């Protein structure tokens, strides 16, 4: 029973050190040096109103907006309080049907040819803010028509909102859907 005292005291001390001092120190330094990131990388619209985080996607279904990836979060897509994926198995009939429905919805807007997988397959977090440049390009005619914009000018806007690979070689080029749509709304 000699070990009882260290067992209890170590729990108390490690709780104070690892559960109190450590996160407090990290929070202090992080907010001093990276205040924007530490608080969620929030973004504002043209009227300087906080409208979300540049890291967290939002649901779009209107023709005048670019659409993001499908999201499997509960209640509605891109619900930040319910992050998660569909967890559908690759042979699940319900999943195959859901993808077929999404393909059809895109075909109905006039899309022909192959469909990039990211636009019809749900993300892991359900909050993925990005789509591929191919998926954005495929939506340009629809958005241009809904907003009466020149497709070429819209294409340039998409290009401006395409993030390259980090440090030039990490990850994939990608388009932040919320940022692009906010820029579209700010045009007027």
């Amino acid at each position, binding site marked *: 029973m000699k070990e009882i005292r260290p067992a209890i005291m170590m729990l108390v001390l490690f709780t104070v050190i690892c559960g109190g001092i450590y996160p407090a120190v990290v929070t202090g330094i992080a907010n001093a040096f990276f205040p924007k990131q530490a608080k969620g990388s929030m973004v504002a619209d043209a009227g300087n109103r906080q409208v979300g985080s540049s890291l967290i996607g939002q649901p779009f279904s209107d023709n005048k907006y670019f659409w993001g990836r499908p999201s499997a979060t509960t209640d509605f897509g891109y619900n930040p309080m319910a992050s998660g994926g569909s*967890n559908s198995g690759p042979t699940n009939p319900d999943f195959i049907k859901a993808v077929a429905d999404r393909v059809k919805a895109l075909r109905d807007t006039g899309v022909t040819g192959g469909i990039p997988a990211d636009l019809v397959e749900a993300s892991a977090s359900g909050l993925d803010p990005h789509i591929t440049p191919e998926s954005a390009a495929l939506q340009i005619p629809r958005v241009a028509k809904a907003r009466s914009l020149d497709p070429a000018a819209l294409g340039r806007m998409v290009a401006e909102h395409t993030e390259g690979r980090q440090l030039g070689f990490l990850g994939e080029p990608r388009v932040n859907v919320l940022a692009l749509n906010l820029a579209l709304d700010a045009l007027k």
Partner: protein
Amino acid sequence: MNSYEWLETILFFVVLLALVKPLGAFMAKVYQGERTFLSPVLVPCENLVYRLCGVKRDEEMGWQRYAWAMVLFNLVLFAALFAMLMLQHLLPLNPQKVPAFGWQLALNTAISFVTNTNWQAYSGETAASYFTQMVGLAVHNFVSAATGMAVVIALIRGFARRRTSLLGNFWVDMTRGTLYILLPISVVGALFLVSQGVIQNFGDYKTVPLVQAVTYDKPKLDAKGNALKDAKGNPVTESVTAKEVTIPMGPVASQEVIKELGTNGGGFFNANSAHPFENPTPLSHYFEILLILLIPGALTYTFGVMVGNTRQGWALLGVMLFIALLSFGVLQGVEASGNPLLAKLGVQGANLEGKELRFSLPGTNLFEVATTGTSCGAVTAMHDSLTPLGGMIPLSLILLGEVVFGGVGSGLYTMLAFAVIAVFVSGLMIGRTPEYLGKKIEVREMWMSMVTILAAGVVVLITSGIAMITPAAVSSMSNPGAHGLSQVLYAFASMANNNGSAFAGLNANVDFFNLLGSLAMTVGRYLPAVAVLAMAGSLAGKKYVPPSLGTLPTDKAPFAIWLTLVILIVGALTFFPALALGPIVEHLTMLGGN
């Protein structure tokens, strides 16, 4: 893979291997009680801890006392965490007014975090307060990692020492492991993650307006909160319009870093490392993979230093690296070729269901290999949505006993148990005396190694079998057919091997999984750990046998190849029938177009 993908993958392994020697040498110093560059700051803290705990730092323990201290400490940790989860609603730092856990879920969660499993049957955003996450769960991420490291260090001392019964002091190993290794890396790592966009605050959840409001069907609830059903038994819904959403906040970075560094894996949020607030950029992604593999990789060098021959450590690292690259290659191949059932619909490209776009495909696959080759269990892709053969890779890595780098401590001690078996079997085959690192391998070492290797496997097969004949378990499967079996097999493999990842469609928050899973996690953690300490005690008492012509060299390539084969053969013999009925059947069905 394109040239960028090759570049990032190769560079990752270069960085990892470059860190093995410096960190491994540093850890050897820490556990041998030598001075390090952190000593001026940390020695006073360390001495204060010993004074408050009544620990005499030079008082060494035999294996029984070491094991007893470990088990007793874990019991105390469990009791404290269980109580905290049950009393969550009364404790501070709970801006969202989250209620207490039910006892079954609290039991499962407390055991899960104490055993370094971090199986999560709850959802972080809605079920856990800041206090629970930070003062409860994150602390256990440190302590359970330090426990695993202490056990492997005791085993290494068993190999290195001669004719003694003493293996070191458990409390000193715990303290030094936490203060010198886990905490400093965590502080630096957490700040780096924040710079990439991982959040770190104690603010209220933020409510923001949606750019485009969404209308959806919400199930109607009665006064008790149960879903209402109409006469036909269908749920009654009402149309609701959401004009704003709530974005969760919290001290994420400080927890994210130790979750990976300690191969714990319990996410702050439900989506784990796929969540943009846990893992916002490609750089944070590779950094997190590095954190997962860092200590398990470097421990092989620590082992080499402490037994006096670093090539012994490199041989083990070579085995780990080989199996990791093999698994990565297969996973990358099958995921890149996409889902043939969707290709028929005109969908192009890799399988992206349950994956995030900001990480490249090889980056995602590397994370999944790292997280299941170790006992981490954090995910950036949903394993349930991998292609059938793709999903078999993480499952197999877990079933092999998590020795491909392995959990902090637990991976290396399981690997050393495999090495003992390999030495013994080869000894039988070629008529040489089985010796490893100058210690004769005898009946006791064989028993303890077999227990270490087979404990989790036996638990997985028995519990999965029970689940298959239990209606409550079968109704938890979210996917039909062979994939449902994979979900259950994965769940028990994950819990018994203390991984914590899941085929997450499975509804695991039911009494069956909470209770049987608690048992699987406990047996899978402590039976091997105590067996390892028993083996350490027996080894330490033996005399040193100098290598002779009759000794099998264990620091050379032939032994590494042989060890790889032993690991793969033991895994295949134990689990092939179960894997054939799950992922392999599903793969054939998919190719058949059904």
